[in-house]
């Protein structure tokens, strides 16, 4: 285990230098800040846990517990509190525990940082937040059963409302889902969180139109990738291909992911023109190359080789055409690569050098 300098002048110097220019004075808790008796090794932790499991220790008799045992049992207790249905005493306890200061630590594997073994405060906060989301969910559900518009008029940009709305939607009937979705889809512009909810509805009642509207409305965010993944799992190829192609041609932020799903569709459905045109795209060219490689017909092979030997082709096109041959992993494609090398048909020296090192 490493030690930190006692009041390391270097550490302080750096910390204060940054504080001066940025108003930041935060530093993490360091190992030196913690009494060594509060630091547990992995084997000590295992031993403590086995001891607790083999004992009849209980939070009811706190005086019999050391700090480790107390925090272990407390953490276990909070973890199993049902956040959907908090009693007032549980609520008060969680609130009090939200500022609990941990007393037991282990050491970071790579350096002198203490790590709380049981993050009781965070767990308590998380339970309280889940409770609030649950309360909001109940409220939103009431709104929905009264009137779809009342539900739709909520401020989904409020994070709590948005989370609760996602939960409501995951439990609605098909009929309710359709009512919400049909109303949303008529809007000319959907903001981000509305689009995410619509995408979620698309997964519930498998509506290509919902997926399309949701995915083409989104311009960033992790949720779009998830919705696209769901769509790929749920829609028939004839429905999904239209949406994939729209995302690809719009160069959506989801376009590369869409291309890789597209590669799994039967190749007779592929739009070869679109794919070959994309080979010149700096960002999406390699994804298009992969799609073409997954079914390298004689026609596509000829077109690929033509790009490589055509002196009008850009570097990007040539590189992606070569990637097409590499990703095909077929005897035909490998032979084509060997032929290109043997006959010096790769127009860029650095590319030819890299290709010559490929294990074919």
């Amino acid at each position: 285990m490493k030690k930190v300098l006692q009041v390391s002048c270097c550490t302080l110097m750096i910390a204060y230098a940054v504080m001066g220019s940025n108003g930041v004075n935060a530093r993490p808790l360091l190992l030196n800040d913690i009494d060594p008796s509060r630091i547990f090794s992995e084997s000590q932790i295992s031993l403590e846990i086995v001891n607790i499991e083999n004992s009849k220790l209980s939070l009811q008799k706190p005086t019999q517990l050391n700090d480790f045992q107390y925090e272990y049992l407390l953490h276990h207790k909070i973890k199993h509190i049902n956040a959907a249905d908090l009693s007032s005493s549980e609520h008060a306890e969680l609130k009090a525990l939200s500022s609990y200061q941990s007393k037991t630590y282990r050491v970071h594997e790579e350096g002198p940082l203490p790590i709380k073994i049981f993050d009781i405060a965070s767990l308590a906060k998380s339970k309280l937040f889940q409770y609030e989301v649950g309360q909001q969910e109940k409220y939103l559900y009431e709104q929905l059963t009264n009137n779809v518009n009342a539900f739709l008029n909520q401020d989904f940009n409020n994070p709590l409302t948005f989370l609760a709305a996602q939960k409501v939607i995951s439990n609605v009937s098909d009929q309710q889902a359709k009512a919400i979705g049909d109303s949303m889809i008529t809007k000319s512009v959907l903001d981000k969180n509305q689009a995410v909810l619509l995408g979620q509805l698309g997964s519930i009642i498998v509506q290509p139109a919902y997926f399309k509207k949701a995915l083409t409305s989104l311009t960033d965010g992790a949720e779009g990738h998830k919705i696209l993944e769901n769509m790929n799992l749920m829609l028939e190829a004839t429905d999904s291909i239209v949406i994939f192609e729209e995302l690809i041609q719009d160069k959506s932020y989801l376009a590369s992911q869409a291309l890789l799903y597209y590669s799994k569709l039967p190749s007779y459905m592929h739009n070869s023109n679109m794919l070959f045109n994309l080979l010149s795209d700096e960002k999406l060219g390699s994804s298009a190359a992969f799609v073409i490689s997954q079914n390298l017909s004689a026609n596509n092979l000829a077109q690929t080789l033509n790009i490589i030997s055509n002196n009008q082709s850009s570097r990007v096109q040539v590189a992606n055409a070569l990637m097409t041959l590499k990703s095909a992993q077929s005897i035909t494609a490998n032979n084509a690569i060997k032929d290109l090398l043997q006959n010096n048909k790769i127009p860029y020296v650095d590319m030819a050098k890299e290709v010559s090192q490929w294990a074919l």
Partner: protein
Amino acid sequence: MGSLIKKTLIAAAAFSLPCLALSETLTYTENTNSSTEAALGYPVPLPKDSLVAIDGFRTYSSLKMHHDAMALQHAEMTPVVVGQTRNNRDITAFVFGDADNLDSEGKVEPAFLINGTIHAREWQSPEVVTELMERLIEEKSDQGMVQYLLENTNIVILPVLNIDGFLQTQRYPNQVTNSPGTTASSSRLDKFAQPRDGRMRRKNMPNVDEDISTNSDRLLGIDLNRNSKHFFGVQQGNNDPNSLIYGGPSIFSEPETQALLEAAKLGPENKLRFYQDTHSFSRVLFVPQPNNSRRNAITNSIAGKFQATTTALGANYFPVIDQVGSGIPTTADYFAYEHQVPSWTLEIEPPQGFQGEPDGGAFYGGTGLSHSGFIAPDSAIARIRDQLAPAQMLMFYHQAGPAHVKSVRIADSSDNTVYAADWQTNSNGRSLNITVDNVLQGGQQYKLWISFSKPMRIRNANGNIVQYTGQSVSLTPAIALSGQSASGTFNRSITTANSNWQNQSGGELSGYDTYKDDAILLNFTVPSNINVSSSTGNTNFNLNINVQDLAGLSLDANPSTVVDWTNGAWSNYENASNQLGDVGGTDASYSLKVSNATLTLNATNSASGGGGGVFSVLILILMLFLCVQKLVINNVCIKRKI
């Protein structure tokens, strides 16, 4: 209709159920806790296929194809297979730079090594490292910082070292095996204090199968960050094959760590000036301190600059400085102790132990589940990548070395060049080649153009000179004319401004030289109120140039000896008093002739006839005194910094 999802979920669940239920597995969920589930409090990230950066984590196969395609497309990025993993997968390092390994003066370039994904479960690492690779390529023609780095340095990046382990974590992205000593039947209490296989695999995979349910091998593997030469075996657990930090049977026993050494040779090793091993989590830098005070001072200084840049972008990456001489067998310690280069273990966020900021997964509103910091949510990773790339780029720029003056030009109001000097490379270093050395006139206005060996400034979207994110350097160049007049020494500042920096092409006396903002162009008037003792002849005016680069490194005050990196510190890096060190200073190598007829005739001196006398002796004594005092002050400064 909804049944389709349910069917998918059932299928996924069935797939994940161990066929021979030997090792107990736990599934990470967003919100549900049970004896086989653990809630993170946010959606569990699952790797996605995409050949561009996304709001999420990419699969290994996507990352690899993306790296390979970038390398093929761009001559500035070359793949080199540096070894194979235990399970025989190629480990590839990528070398960024121009075709030769030589800088603009024909010297072997300085090198940097960035290692990624040595620990399998640290998914933040390959994303952060890939972002750096993407920026080096996307900005390769910026005519500024990145192009300078590609043309004058050799950057080696190894994005995924522990491929076998990384694939195992992606094979079971939401599943993990239990800690040792407990089974499903033995305990009703919470377990997983030390989760070890599946999503939480850290080590490599020798004699480990890819089936999470196999009980016998779930603890096996070697911690590739404990397999290095220095401090080998010093920690409890380093010799226990079941330990999370098992160091392996011998030093560098693992093909993966051997591959890292091969990657270092691409530098080559003796040209390395920076090493970073990229981990998660904690939002700190662990900074080794071998017994080398100059190396440590430089390292800690740049760690502070790294922190300042990330802090300005909203993430305080705090440098945790080791005790001198104390270490563990990490790769960061290896490069610090073996090669004396600035090196560290970067622990990407989430943070840990910062007051007012929740730890680990709770930082993202999660439950604070043990080890959840290894599972950052999809929604965080794009921000994380963006907060770290500029800081890492700044480290390259800093360690490329201090700038020196390349050329000085002075032209009169009719655009006739009256002074021209260039530092030219020769076998011993550089010499100042003065091609025009005409006499200047006091009271007349001239144009002054000075070019430097690297881009010195960056600009914002509006084209204005700004600090590099989070840094605070003197943006305005300090230029002065000094010399010896009849009434003593003089030192007259030339008025300068940020607008003197040149980002238009044009070269000497009209724009930048090689890179945007590598040159200044300004007008100045030669002062006429300098006392002279005779109206004939000339007085020498020294041109003093003092500029910091955008990372805060001052000029090499004596360009005739070429700065390099030796034994963990700068060599041939002089300050204004021509003393070697790590600080640099004012370059006063340029002597201009100014006609005495245009300066101020000093009556007293001209009366005494020929100058000299007691007065001059007094001045000489005063100058000597000042000079000695300055040396002493500088000595003290340097000592204190060390």
